[in-house]
């Protein structure tokens, strides 16, 4: 999945030595990496199956450096790929051989915690969890908590519109932002949003959130902080079929309860997690649900009773409430360790990120099972059940090139299944490079053309992270030739080559 100029568009030829000399002359204090051995550590992000050594790596520390670098890059016509902590799972920060990798990791200061307003102003390289840690003395926290929150940067969270296990109640990154400072491709500063709850003009902050670094470089972020909920309780319910567990999820929501977390794991996933983390999961269950409720004590108790009754009615074979915080942490530890746990039962795994309407869960799980047999690869299912975000984990051995190809093909088929039932190819990991072909299943040529129009408004030379997120029509024509989109032949008007 390397950048393919034939399908993804030509990239300018740049004289590396001349560019390096110009940057060093203009920005003597900017840390630049240019030797092969220094560049290699940056060849991939969290999706390590895809690797490309960048032409140059820049590690700016000041806004002035970012602005000047962007001005030079624009002038020279060099592509720029922005990167935070590099934990993304979709190859959104995969470098380009002919491009600069702009690493924002040194923008790592928390500039201000305003406890009165309930906001934090931070630089993009600050780690997600570090914000909550800095806010904790004030009884506040930053709600979105992607599973990589120890390591992932808030700038990357903005670029991907990151989620986590608490989205149903607390929203995605976009719901927890107030203001972004941006450097445009020309090196100009823009402020999107404000410290007020709304801002005149178009909601460009929402547009930039999740745009995968393709519209501008985020240099400062103001996030909302929430009061830490005084109480959290967790129920662990076992089911003898995934259908019943799925029904319980729908019934909990229909009963008017919004859990702060509602997670499902199937038998393969829960057994792997149990062997790894000893969370106390029932190994004989076909599926388990973890349901967390938070808020003030009396509300949480009330909702716990309600959820328990719903789970019983839906046919839970066993329901346990964590007796104390230690047990609650243990219940969660299993879920949070699900990915590494699956990593222990298979040489490699490939994590998918489709979303579906919850009612389609039984159908989609049955479809995944059939595909799993067809491709002869095991699939473990971990599921943010409350918001319909599935993480099927495809087990394979990367040393066997046939297995790797089967895993990729199976993953693509699973995502197309999600689209077919009205879902999306990505709930929180982003399109990046990984799902660039599946974009052609979710969107038609007119919609993709519209995305390109938006891109052109902010980056007409397409220098910011080219090749990610939005496929070219050429790519869709070639890839899409194999597929039928919404019952129609794809791109009938487009010339084939």
């Amino acid at each position, binding site marked *: 999945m390397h950048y393919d100029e034939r399908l993804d568009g030509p990239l300018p030829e740049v004289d590396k030595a001349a560019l390096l000399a110009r940057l060093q002359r203009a920005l003597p204090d900017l840390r630049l990496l240019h030797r092969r051995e220094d560049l290699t550590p940056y060849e991939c992000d969290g999706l390590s199956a895809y690797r490309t050594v960048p032409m140059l790596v820049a590690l700016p520390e000041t806004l002035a450096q970012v602005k000047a670098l962007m001005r030079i890059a624009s002038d020279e016509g060099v592509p720029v790929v922005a990167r935070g902590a590099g934990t993304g799972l979709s190859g959104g920060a995969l470098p380009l051989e002919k491009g600069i990798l702009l690493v924002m990791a040194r923008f790592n200061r928390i500039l201000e915690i305003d406890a009165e307003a309930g906001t934090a102003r931070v630089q993009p390289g600050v780690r997600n969890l570090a914000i909550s840690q800095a806010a904790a003395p004030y009884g506040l926290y930053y709600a979105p908590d992607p599973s990589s929150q120890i390591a992932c940067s808030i700038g990357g969270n903005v670029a991907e519109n990151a989620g986590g296990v608490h989205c149903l109640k607390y929203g995605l990154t976009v719901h927890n932002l107030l203001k972004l400072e941006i450097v445009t491709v020309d090196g100009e500063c823009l402020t999107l949003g404000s410290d007020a709850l709304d801002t005149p003009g178009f909601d460009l902050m929402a547009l930039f959130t999740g745009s995968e670094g393709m519209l501008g470089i985020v240099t400062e972020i103001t996030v909302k902080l929430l009061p830490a909920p005084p109480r959290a309780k967790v129920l662990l319910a076992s089911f003898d079929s995934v259908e019943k567990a799925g029904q319980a999820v729908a019934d909990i929501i229909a009963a008017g309860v919004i859990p702060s977390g509602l997670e499902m794991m199937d038998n393969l996933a829960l057994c792997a997690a149990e062997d790894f983390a000893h969370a106390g999961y029932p190994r004989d269950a076909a599926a388990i649900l973890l349901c967390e409720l938070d808020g003030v004590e009396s509300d949480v108790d009330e909702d716990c009773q309600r959820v328990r009754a719903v789970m019983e009615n839906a046919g839970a074979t066993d329901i346990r409430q964590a007796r104390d915080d230690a047990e609650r942490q243990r219940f969660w530890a299993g879920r949070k360790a699900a990915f590494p746990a699956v990593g222990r039962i298979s040489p490699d795994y490939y994590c998918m990120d489709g979303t579906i309407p919850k009612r389609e869960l039984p159908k989609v799980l049955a479809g995944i099972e059939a595909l799993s047999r067809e491709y002869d690869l095991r699939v473990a299912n971990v599921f943010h059940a409350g918001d319909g975000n599935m993480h099927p984990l495809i087990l394979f051995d990367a040393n066997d090139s046939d297995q790797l190809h089967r895993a990729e093909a199976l993953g693509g088929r699973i995502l197309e299944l999600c689209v077919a039932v009205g879902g999306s190819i990505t709930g929180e990991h982003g399109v990046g490079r990984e799902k660039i072909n599946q974009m052609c299943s979710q969107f038609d040529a007119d919609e993709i053309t519209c995305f390109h129009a938006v*891109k052109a408004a902010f980056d007409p030379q397409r220098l910011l992270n080219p090749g990610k997120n939005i496929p070219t029509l050429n790519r869709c024509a070639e890839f899409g030739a194999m597929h039928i989109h919404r019952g129609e032949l794809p791109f009938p008007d487009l010339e084939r080559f």
Partner: protein
Amino acid sequence: MGDRTEALLERVRAARAERRPLCPRGTGGKSHLGRPVDGEALDTLGHSGVVHYDPSELVVTARAGTRVSELIATLAEQDQMLPFEPPLFGGDASVGGMVASGLAGPRRPWAGSVRDFVLGTRVITGEGRHLRFGGEVMKNVAGYDLSRLMAGSFGCLGLITEVSFKVLPHPRASRSLQLRLTGEQARERILNWRRRGLPLSAACHGGGLLRLRLEGNQGSVDAAVAEIGGEPLEDAHYWQKLRDHRLPFFDGAKPLWRLSLPPATPELDLPGTRLSDWGGAQRWLKSDADADTLRQLAASAGGSATRFSGEEPEDTPFHPLPAPLLRYHQTLKARLDPDRIFNPGRLYADL
């Protein structure tokens, strides 16, 4: 009630061919907002109806011409709601207008904005194509987020034909109180209650009274009422009247201004009568003061000022944008609506 997509597409294509601007219009309750546009009214009310509603998914999809009152009633049958409490100026609103204006009611600071609850939109673009962005799922980060961009765009980027929303269950308990406090006392109390997570869902100060609404489960609401004290709010319909601008405050000939400010902003010395909603983040002002004065006051506090009513012709009722930001608004508009057929000039003269 029905699907009039084809008729709407035809209107847009014809307007495009003749370079005739269109002014999308629902019930017209917000037509006084923004600059006047010299264009043909495009009535969306015929394109109406709830297309899909599944309470256990917390998702509803409705066509742009659907009356918001009807949508609210449909949700209420299942004990669910649009959490952002959209205003029904003049008695009703359309789903398209609700999203295009992005206006929200008293619950906004605690529940979120219109944009926060948009999951997907279908839009007819300036190219005369009917496109779909986002969808009916809670999490969806494929492609650029054009569906949320439509919220608050005042119909300048395309014709919204259908919107999917996240909805929430109605709170089980709701109590409203009033307390006699100065503006500054009210501000301090609200900040304190907010930081401690009390279940506030509305807070409006005016005329020496702080009016509060508390919503949640019974236990937390009862505990908060016991702690806060005060008296029960006299007017049972106060929050709807505030939402829809039917309080006596909103009467009278003086122009109405809306100041959107950081929530912790202290009392400002504003020339005119004031009503401070959203716990202080949205301040209504009836005032004859000139626009520059009010805009400077709002901007120096980190916010903005928008003229909401008033007959005097004025170039920009919306707070002006910094030059680079306006330029990007213009390029985006030019890319999505190259023939300038959707509400040209409604937000700003050169947009």
